[in-house]
């Protein structure tokens, strides 16, 4: 963060630092120079005093000569001479070496050593004059000097004073020059610093303004870009803050997708609550809160998004599907917002649904219906039976245990023959719905065979095609039944009539074949409450039971008479609703009943059991044998019994109905099959 800040403001920071550095250096130099200038002032002052002192020395010497000539006391002049000489000497020394000397005001002051070569030369020249001068002056500073000594020094002073004065003058000039230079340099530095600071300020201002303008332009550009993006994206896009409010900007399509008014900073949850069910809303709320929480791992919870495809209530009540996606937006490592993307996936969902629906739907078109109407009802029923048989055969073969490649190839060929047969019949009857389907089926089979290898996967395909065929068969059968029923009057009545007639016709035919006399009493009124599919199942089950009743139950008329029964046997067929959706279907004959002994004999005769085994069976177990495949007590095979197919089929049909069978029988009195089932 501080680095970011530094980068952003680096020019201003650098500029301020430069300003401070410049200012401090100039200030430092100023202080230094002021100090130097103060020193120079002392030097100039003292070097001026040297001029004066050299003059005064000469003057005192001359005054001493005058004193001697007129004979006054020399004491005052000698005192002054000592003072002046000492001052001059120490000051000169100060110029040469730097030392504390007596200042103009009598106080001690530090005199700096001269700095320039010129000044050093002047001081050195001054010493050349001053050293002999001082030697000559020495006797005068002690009491009792001679006139010669005074004259000697005065003479020296006369000849050298001007030179010394000139040197001191030169020194003053030189010191003044140095001081001036110093002042000039200081001023130059001050002006330079000022100019530099000014320049620095100008540069900084320029850079800052340029950056600000650039920043503004970038901001404007960024905002424009954001707006363009939000204006053009096809999704609803918005940010959600920690208080679950919408951000200030969102994509243009958002209100349209949500089918709701949306405003910046609007709370999101109430919108959601209006749209989805309570359960989904609660989950979604929890989910959003989880995402704002730091604990859960975003990538490990996205699978739980309850809004990834959700049915929502639109404003106009029409429901549509939306898909919401939430992504965390991090700022400085903290979750600041959730970026929410919303898409309307209604079309996608509906399209998928429609596609699925179209695939499985059995479409029966008007022209097919017309074709069916023009087809003879008996022929049609025959055809539908054939189709049903063919499909059952295919399915039976599919169940085959053998899964070798060769067996599958055989199976394929077999299925192809059946399908081809159906196609031919359908074409002959002009029932296009079957013809087309069988044709498509056949084509797929040919394709499978042409691959040279029939795989287990192909069997799944065949099964699906078979199921589709069954479905078409069911719908056509349904239509055929309705048409048969709509011949006149009430459809239920018609059905009941057909059902009863079929029972009576069948019994009459079998009885005729067997030269028996049988009357049928039907009480089947409740059968019309059952779905036709179930009633038809009952019908085919009934056929089997009636065959058995006539063949095995009812005795020959003579036999009946001997037993004291009416010569005409009676079979009752009843269907009764005995409870809520619970039915009983009964087939009862007043024939010879089931002989346990007879069954035992047949079991032994057929070699199914040994005599001992047969005897060992309980009565119930013997009765159960009736329902096993392959058992038939009829002496010879004819078209109504004796094929070893009979009660086993009944048992299976009952199982399909999920019914319960009660078998009651009394020898020489009756046999009753009672099937109880719920629909």
């Amino acid at each position: 963060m501080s680095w970011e800040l530094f980068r952003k403001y680096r020019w201003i920071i650098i500029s301020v630092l430069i300003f401070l550095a410049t200012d401090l250096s100039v200030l430092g130099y100023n202080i230094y120079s002021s100090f130097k200038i103060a020193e120079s002032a002392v030097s100039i002052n003292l070097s001026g005093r040297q001029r004066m002192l050299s003059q005064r020395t000469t003057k005192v010497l001359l005054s001493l000569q005058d004193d001697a000539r007129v004979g006054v006391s020399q004491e005052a002049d000698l005192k002054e001479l000592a003072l002046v000489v000492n001052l001059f000497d120490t000051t000169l020394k100060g110029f040469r070496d730097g030392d504390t000397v007596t200042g103009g005001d009598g106080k001690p002051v530090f005199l700096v050593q001269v700095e320039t070569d010129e000044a050093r030369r002047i001081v050195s020249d001054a010493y050349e004059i001053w050293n002999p001068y001082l030697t000559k002056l020495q006797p005068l500073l002690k009491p009792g000097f001679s006139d010669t000594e005074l004259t000697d020094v005065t003479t020296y002073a006369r000849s050298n004073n001007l030179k010394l004065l000139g040197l001191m003058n030169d020194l003053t000039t030189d010191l003044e020059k140095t001081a001036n230079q110093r002042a000039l340099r200081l001023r130059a530095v001050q002006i330079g610093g000022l100019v530099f600071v000014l320049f620095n300020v100008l540069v900084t201002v320029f850079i800052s303004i340029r950056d600000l303008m650039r920043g503004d332009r970038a901001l404007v550009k960024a905002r424009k870009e954001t707006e363009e993006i939000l204006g053009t994206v096809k999704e609803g896009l918005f940010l959600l803050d920690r208080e679950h409010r919408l951000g200030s900007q969102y994509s243009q399509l958002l209100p349209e997708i949500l089918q709701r008014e949306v405003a910046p900073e609007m709370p999101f949850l109430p919108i959601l609550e209006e749209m989805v069910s309570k359960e989904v809303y609660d989950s979604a709320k929890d989910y959003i809160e989880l995402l704002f929480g730091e604990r859960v791992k975003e990538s490990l919870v996205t699978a739980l998004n309850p809004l990834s495809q959700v049915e929502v209530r639109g404003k106009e009540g029409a429901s549509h599907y939306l898909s919401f996606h939430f992504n965390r937006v991090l700022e400085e490592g903290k979750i600041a917002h959730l970026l929410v993307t919303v898409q309307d996936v209604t079309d996608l969902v509906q399209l998928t649904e429609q596609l699925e629906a179209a695939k499985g739907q059995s479409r029966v078109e008007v022209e097919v219906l017309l074709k069916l109407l023009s087809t003879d009802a008996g022929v049609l029923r025959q055809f539908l039976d054939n189709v049903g048989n063919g499909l059952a055969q295919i399915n039976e073969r599919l169940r085959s245990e053998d899964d070798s490649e060769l067996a599958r190839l055989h199976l394929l060929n077999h299925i192809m023959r059946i399908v081809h047969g159906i196609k031919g019949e359908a074409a002959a009857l002009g029932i296009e719905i079957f013809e087309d389907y069988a044709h498509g089926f056949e084509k797929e089979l040919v394709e499978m065979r042409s691959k040279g290898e029939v795989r287990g996967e192909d069997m799944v395909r065949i099964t699906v095609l078979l199921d589709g065929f069954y479905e078409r068969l069911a719908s056509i059968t349904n239509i055929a039944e309705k048409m048969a029923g709509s011949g006149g009057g009430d459809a239920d009545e018609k059905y009941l009539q057909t059902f009863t007639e079929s029972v009576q016709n069948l019994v009459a035919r079998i009885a005729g074949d067997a030269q028996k006399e049988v009357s049928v009493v039907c009480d089947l009124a409740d059968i019309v409450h059952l779905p036709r599919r179930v009633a038809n199942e009952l019908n085919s089950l009934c056929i089997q039971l009636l065959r058995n009743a006539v063949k095995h139950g009812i005795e020959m008329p003579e036999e009946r008479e001997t037993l004291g029964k009416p010569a005409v046997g009676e079979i009752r067929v009843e269907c009764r609703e005995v409870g809520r959706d619970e039915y009983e279907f009964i087939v009862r004959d007043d024939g010879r009943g089931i002989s346990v002994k007879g069954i035992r004999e047949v079991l032994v005769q057929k070699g199914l059991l040994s005599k001992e085994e047969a005897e060992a069976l309980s009565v119930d177990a013997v009765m159960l044998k009736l329902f096993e495949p392959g058992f038939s007590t009829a002496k010879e095979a004819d078209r109504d019994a004796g094929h070893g197919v009979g009660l086993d089929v009944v048992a299976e049909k009952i199982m399909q109905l999920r019914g319960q069978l009660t078998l009651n029988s009394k020898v020489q009195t009756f046999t009753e099959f009672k099937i109880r089932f719920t629909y």
Partner: protein
Amino acid sequence: MKLLIVDDSSIIRSRIARIMSDPRLPSLMIVGMAKNGAEAMELFSQTQPDLVTMDLTMPEMDGVECTESLSKLNGDVGILVVSALSDKATAIKALKKGAKGFLYKPFTDEQLVNALLEMMS
């Protein structure tokens, strides 16, 4: 890092255990396997694991309740819910009660390894 496996299916337990030998999870060590919530609580106190894989549908104490109890014992523990549950609301509840992530059953070895790596990051 110590891992506790909580699942009522022994198959799943052994499968997770087997996947733990993946070279990308060198620092992970199984410290216990529990087949219900009560067992999980006991093993948790004994072994103090850092990570827990948690089934949701279990006898006795279910996964949501167990997640809540474990989080109360140690708020830092990383609980990864591993469930075939189609009911998202229950899974979200477990996350609210302290779990950190969710993985659908069935999972591939790869998916589990990635989920655990994410949990440890």
